[in-house]
């Protein structure tokens, strides 16, 4: 009877420890959030900011982008040549904190890699486009 109670308590504490480890694995997302603000500007201003094919505003603008993936950015304005670039997603120092629970329970590293978007950072966090003049469009 006493042995069964001890075993239940042991299983419960193991489960709680595992839950704490998994929760800690996502700590970067809890603190930093899964999205990051990126500033877009252009010379001249008033250009459309198209991210991953979606028009998200006009320069100057601060737009929130997902941290985990790279994004294709296009800045365009009538009378100018479109500007294109790609933002990348790089790991921050949060990765080291994510490794701590992985030392106890290695599969956590997999959950970090997939789910903890907060451990990533969008690079660059400022996109500046100096637009180049295009010839006027011919009249239809």
């Amino acid at each position, binding site marked *: 009877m006493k042995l069964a109670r001890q075993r239940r308590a042991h299983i419960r504490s193991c489960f709680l420890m595992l839950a704490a480890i998994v929760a800690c694995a996502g700590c970067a997302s809890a603190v930093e959030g899964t999205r990051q603000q990126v500033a877009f500007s252009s010379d001249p201003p008033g250009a459309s900011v198209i991210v991953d094919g979606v028009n998200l505003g006009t320069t100057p603008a601060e737009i929130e982008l997902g941290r985990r993936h790279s994004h294709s950015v296009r800045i365009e304005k009538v009378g100018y040549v479109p500007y294109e670039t790609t933002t*990348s997603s790089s790991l921050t120092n949060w990765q080291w904190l994510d490794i701590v629970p992985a030392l106890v329970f290695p599969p956590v590293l997999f959950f970090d890699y997939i789910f903890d978007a907060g451990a990533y950072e969008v690079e660059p966090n400022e996109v500046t486009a100096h637009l180049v003049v295009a010839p006027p469009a011919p009249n239809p």
Partner: protein
Amino acid sequence: MRSGLFVFIVVSLLYCAGCDPASINAGFPEVPVAPVTNTASSAKIGVARVEDSRSDRKAGLIGTSSEVYLLVGPELPDYIERKFRNELAMRGITSLDALNPAKTGEPGHYKTLVVTLQSATFATPDPIFVKAESSVNIAVQVYAASTTNVEFAASYSGTNQERIGFSRGTGLRSGAILAVAADRAVDAAFADAKFEQALK
């Protein structure tokens, strides 16, 4: 044992929090010399130095465990210019040194090609299966002969993705990885029939 591990982790975190991002310069491969076309009958076009309109030289972070910026300097605009001149030579067009008509305010004797490097990016986003991604975007303008009017303008992009192995060789190969993206951007320009037409 456990306290030792804890101290190691804390010291590592403090070290990482305190270090400033370093940077390395990307080196670019040579462009093979194409046969020079310069006969009286060959078409001629002025080629201005490739402009660099980027706000800074940082192309992105390199490596997966430290903040090291890859810097792309004037070598990439030079590489793109040589690539353009070679492509022109291979099409039987003689490229002559010219100035940007928009900057001098004076028209060229021939049509003038002005290429602007708008963006160059480099990243190693995958920490497990380390791969490098690069992209280059250029704006191409063709100025009409004897005027300062832009006759044709367009932007072209090239991307490249290569697997490079865990934290090895990134610095040495970064320029070559970017050069492939630049090649693809230039190839995209010459694949555009409107651009080819504007050169004539």
